Structures are given as structure tokens and as C-alpha cells.
């Protein structure tokens, strides 16, 4: 009972914060200060990590750049706040960051009680398993009695327990605090199975002594739709963040790339012309509070969704993650965007 009261009080406090934040007009604030403050992961391979010059690079970082490009026409007008898993929500609630592009799973609790808004899912992830090929296991259902390496304090641990319980399987969790420890333990053979989000499994496979001896099992045991988050109650800002993603998807559908975006402005296809703000008396930007060529700026800065994906986590990167669910709806995936018109 006491716990319930505390939860309710905390919820109320957080809601209070949300309401307070709601009065703010983030777009005007951002325009006034001259940059977007973007919350990113402090380090996650392919999503946000420092490059050789110490600049952040990655899939989530490109979303920050895209939002800055949409508003200012300049992808460099963005500042990053590296956040840990625990810090990210207070950072967004308190207004320390304007948008959180930090591989954050969209859940009902975060959408409602924490006072955030999520809409477009920029990466469909899910928890998976990696095993040694020599185990001859073809499905996670054959893993009864296995020792499973898992990082503690994550939802991963909980999903794992749920999955094995639901399927009436036994397992021995081998739990570590730091990700490097989990990697070392799995590579040294202290456990048979490694479980974390599938995008992470691909990154970890790269650091194993013999990556080809390991395989990722087909089962996905949890839904992890990763989406950029904003504070509830500022619909204008929410729209901008959402439509930046939709612009990236639409660009891929239309075949508009970083290289050909200028030529495409004079495309005979009226849909593309409208999308790129090249149609006479277009208001696609003005309605959002942006320039009409905002989509052009976004694509010039980071390319279309496919390019962003390939460069950071897909075929063009060492991670080589398959598009899978993240392919366009027309190509067997579920990435779908409403039309821009």
C-alpha cells in the first residue's frame, strides 16, 4: 500500500512537471537559442558513439542532425547530451534536452505516466539470442537448461525470465554489471547463450574471437520499438520530430537521396515536387513552422532513411544489420509513412 502511494505521488510529481513543461513552446525556444539540444546514448555501437575526431556519429545522432537541418537548414546546429539509461527521462522532463533520440523503447508507461510523446518508430528492435553454432540449436525453445549471459538492471533480464517461464524452460542466468564483462564471459564459454537486443547482438558478434562460430537465433522474444521522445503537450514540436522521420521514409520511397535531391526538385512527379517544397504556393513547411524546403535540408544533411540505416548500422557499416522489419512497407518491412501533401 505504502509503495502504491509513493508511486502515485511520484507519478503526480512527474505529471506536474509535464504540465509545467507543456506551456513551453519548444520550437520558439530552440529557434531563440539557435540549436537543438538532443539527448543521445552515451555510447551504443552504431546508434551513438564518438568518431575519430570525437564527434558523435550514429543512427540516433543522424536524427538529431536531421531535426536541426529541418529547423535551421544547418545540421551542425545541434548539441548532444550523452545520457545513461537512468538519466534520460529526468533530462527530458526537466527540459535539459529538447528531444530524446536515445534508442528508447516506446511503452505505455513512458507515453502516459512519464509524460512523454512517441510517434514514429525509427527502429524496430527486439530481444534475441546468440549461441555457438556447435550447440546445434535451431530455436530458442531448445535452450532448456542453458546458462544465459545477461547484463543486469535492464529490461532484458526481465524479458528473459518471462520467456523461459512462459515456455516452461529451465535456465541459469549468468549476470554481469558491465557489458564488457558479459562479452568476455560469453567469449570464454562461461555461458551457452547471450541475450540482448538484436541490434546489440550484431555489435557484440564483431568483438568475439571467432564471429562465424556464432549465430543469432530467429526468435524475437520482446517488442522494442525505438522511437524519439518529446515532452507531452507541445504538439507543434511533436509534429516536427515526427515529420522529420516521415520525410526520411518518404524520401526513400521516392528514391530521393543525398546526392540527387537538388535534381529531384525538378522531377516531373508532382508528389516529389510537393514533398521537396518546389511546388508553387506550397505550405508544407509553413504549416509546421518551418521553411518550405525543410525536407530538402533534411535529406541534404543525412540522406534518406535507407542511407541513414546503411551508413550507421546496415550494409555500409561493420555491423551489417539486415533491414528486416525496418525495410519499407513496400519491400516486406513495416516502415510506413503518411504522405506529405
Amino acid at each position, binding site marked *: 500500500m505504502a509503495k502504491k502511494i509513493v508511486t502515485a505521488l511520484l507519478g503526480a510529481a512527474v505529471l506536474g512537471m509535464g504540465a509545467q513543461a507543456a506551456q*513551453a513552446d519548444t520550437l520558439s525556444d530552440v529557434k531563440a537559442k539557435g540549436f537543438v539540444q538532443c539527448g543521445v546514448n552515451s555510447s551504443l555501437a552504431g546508434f551513438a558513439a*564518438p568518431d575519430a575526431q570525437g564527434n558523435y556519429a550514429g543512427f540516433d545522432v543522424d536524427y538529431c542532425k536531421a531535426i536541426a537541418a529541418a529547423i535551421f537548414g544547418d545540421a551542425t546546429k545541434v548539441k*548532444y547530451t550523452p545520457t545513461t539509461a537512468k538519466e534520460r527521462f529526468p533530462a527530458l522532463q526537466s527540459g535539459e534536452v529538447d528531444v530524446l533520440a536515445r534508442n528508447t523503447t516506446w511503452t505505455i508507461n513512458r507515453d502516459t505516466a512519464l509524460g512523454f510523446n512517441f510517434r514514429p518508430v525509427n527502429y524496430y528492435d527486439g530481444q534475441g539470442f546468440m549461441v555457438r553454432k556447435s550447440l546445434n540449436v535451431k530455436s530458442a525453445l531448445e535452450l532448456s537448461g542453458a546458462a544465459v549471459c545477461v547484463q543486469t538492471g535492464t529490461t532484458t533480464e526481465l524479458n528473459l525470465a518471462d520467456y523461459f517461464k512462459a515456455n516452461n524452460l529451465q535456465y541459469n542466468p549468468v549476470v554481469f554489471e558491465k557489458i*564488457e564483462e558479459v562479452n568476455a564471459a560469453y567469449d570464454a564459454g562461461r555461458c551457452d547463450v547471450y541475450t540482448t537486443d538484436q541490434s546489440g547482438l550484431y555489435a557484440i558478434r564483431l*568483438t568475439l574471437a571467432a564471429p562465424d562460430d556464432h549465430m543469432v537465433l530467429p526468435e524475437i522474444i520482446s517488442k522494442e520499438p525505438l522511437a524519439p521522445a518529446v515532452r507531452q503537450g507541445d504538439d507543434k514540436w511533436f509534429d516536427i520530430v515526427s515529420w522529420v522521420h516521415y520525410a526520411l521514409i518518404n524520401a526513400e520511397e521516392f528514391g530521393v537521396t543525398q546526392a540527387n535531391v537538388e535534381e529531384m526538385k525538378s522531377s516531373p512527379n508532382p508528389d516529389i515536387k510537393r514533398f521537396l517544397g518546389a511546388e508553387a504556393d506550397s505550405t508544407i513547411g509553413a504549416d509546421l513552422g518551418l521553411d518550405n524546403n525543410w525536407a530538402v535540408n533534411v535529406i541534404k544533411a543525412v540522406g534518406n532513411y535507407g542511407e541513414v540505416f546503411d551508413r550507421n548500422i546496415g550494409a555500409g557499416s*561493420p555491423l*551489417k544489420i539486415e533491414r528486416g522489419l525496418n525495410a519499407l512497407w513496400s519491400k516486406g518491412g513495416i516502415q510506413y509513412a503518411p504522405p506529405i501533401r
Partner: protein
Amino acid sequence: MASTQSSYVRAQMIAAEPPPPGVTGAAHWLKTNLFATPKDTILTVIALLLLAWYVPQVLNWLFFNAQWMGTDRSFCATVVQSGGSQPEGWSGACWAFIGSRFDQFIFGRYPIDERWRPTLVGILFVALLVPLMIPKVPYKGWNAILLFVVLPVVSFFLLVGGVFGLRHVETSLWGGLMVTLILSFVGMAVSFPLGILLALGRRSPMPVIKTLCVTFIEIVRGVPLITVLFMASVMLPLFMPQGVTVDRFLRALIGFSIFASAYMAEVIRGGLQAIPKGQYEGADSLGFSYWQKTGLIVLPQAIKIVIPGIVNTFIGMFKDTSLVSIIGMFDLLGIIRQNFADVSWASPVTPLTGLIFAGFVFWIFCFGMSRYSMFVERRLDTGHKR
């Protein structure tokens, strides 16, 4: 009287005989220290075998098999690790990773064309610290004022910028060894005087001062540093009005200094306790005021006694700086671990190499502090040796 010369009394000393064979030299040392008893012999042989087995492996891994040059992961990954160039089964330190990211490990994400600023601060710091540490160099007073008063102000403007045409560099871009050193220097420079005041306050007969000091010390010392940092980074922003933020680095710096002061106060109080009552009474009988008595008689003796404790606290603080990585600041260890996530360097040996490098840098600084404190102890040793 003069003819007391006796022929059987020697006029000069006989030269000392060399020690008998078998009690000097390497052979004797070996016999007494390593092979004195059968048990010793067995232990020595086992230890030597272990060393012979282990040391070459470590040396091979660290130096002979190591990859020194390279631009990406292909230099440190083996052929079976998609895209590597090393032969299968290879394992060695990936110093190329350290080399390619060295600047980042020192400066964090500080803009590259502005990195002369922290470098200049570093040079000034060394130029002021070294003469202060060598006893023979004169003008200690001025030197100390320059180091502890002028340098922090100059460094602040140099590092933060925004004045005199220097570009503003926000602290979220700071990182690496630079952050480690700034945090520990400020922590030490603040905690030492504040610790002395708190320790004196705790022994004060004035009830209000005493209560304040005791409360401060006990509360701050009773809370883990990680909690202080966490409160400062997660809770504080929620209680501030919308749009008002206190710089993260400043929050960490304040939390850190306060924490170190509480520890320092207790160390110095230990020294104060050790001063015999006669010293206080002697000073009183000379008509010294409280501050004269404390400054001239009590503190010089008390601090000399607790040098090991003070240095112990300093070393602990230096290593505690890596806790700031939990609040999204990247000290040396934090920035190295952050770079593990860079897929262009992903290989099995990269994390290990990075951690060894971090350990080595921390060790250099801590060992340096420890040796210097021993030198100071010997120099100030005025007859209290037991």
C-alpha cells in the same frame, strides 16, 4: 712519561679482514633469502616456474605480438573476424587503438582547433607545480598564490572561453584526462583548506560552530559519493524552475569538493588529536592568540603527522573521479569505455587494451603522488621516527 712506548702495543689498527667465504655475495643472498629451508626452496621453485610461464605471455601480449600502427579495426581483428587482417588465433594488445584515439583520451570532445587552450593550461600547471615541489626553489609564497589563486582563474577563462575573442566551449565537450585532472586538482585544492577549517570547527568549544561542522561532516561522509553525484545530476534539475540549469560539470565539481572536504576534515582532526596538550598550553603561556597558536604551533605539527592520511585521501579522490561517468561526464576511464562502442574499432582485444592503458595512466599519477609524499615525510622528519 714519554717512554711508555711498548713494543707489543700496535700503533695503528689492523685492516679489517674480509668476511669468511660463503656469507657474502649473490650465492649467500640466494641461500639465506630464497633457499634457506626445503620449504623455502619449494616455494621459490614454484614461484619461478609461474613467473617463467606467465611473464613471457604477458610480454608477448603487451609488446611483441601487439599491433602498434593502424587506422581501424582490421589491424586488430583476425581474418575470421569479418574484415580483420591478423592471422587466425592472434591475440595481442591493440595499441593502434590508443594511438588513434589518444587526443580524445586527453581532451575528450574538446574542439580540435581549440585544443591549444587545455594544452596551455597544462603547461602553466606543470610550470607552476614543479618549482613549488622542489624545496630549493625560492619565492614559495608567490608561487603558491600563482598556482592556487591566479591559475584557476586564468584556466577558467581559457577553458570555458567566451571572453577575449576565445570561442565558448561548453563543459559537455570536456572529457578525458583533462576532466580527471581538473576534478582532482580542484577537489584537492578546495578540500585541504576547507578540511582544516572543518576539523578546527569540530574541536571548537563554540556550540553552534561545532554542531554545524559535525553535522556537515557526518552527513556528507555518511552518503556514498555516487549518491551525491546522482542526486546532483538527476534530482536537482527536476527541482529547478523550467529553463534554469546548473552546468553538469560544475555540479560534479561542487559535489566532489564537498565530499572530499568532509574526508579531509577527519584526517586532519586525527593529526590535531595527536598533539600533546602541553603544546597548546605552551602556546597559551607565550600569550599567542587562537590563530597564532593554531597556525604557528599546532597545525604545522598536526599536518606533518597526517601526511600519509592526506595523500591517501588525495589518491582515493583521484581514482573516484571516474565515478562522474555515471552522470554523463567522461573522465579518462569514461571516454575510453565510450570509445569501445565505436564499431570501427570493434575487436576482442580493444577493450582490454583500453582498460590496461587507463590503469597505467592512473597508476603513474597515484605512484607519483605516493613517492612525493614519502619524500616530503623524510624531509620533515624531525625526530618523531619510531
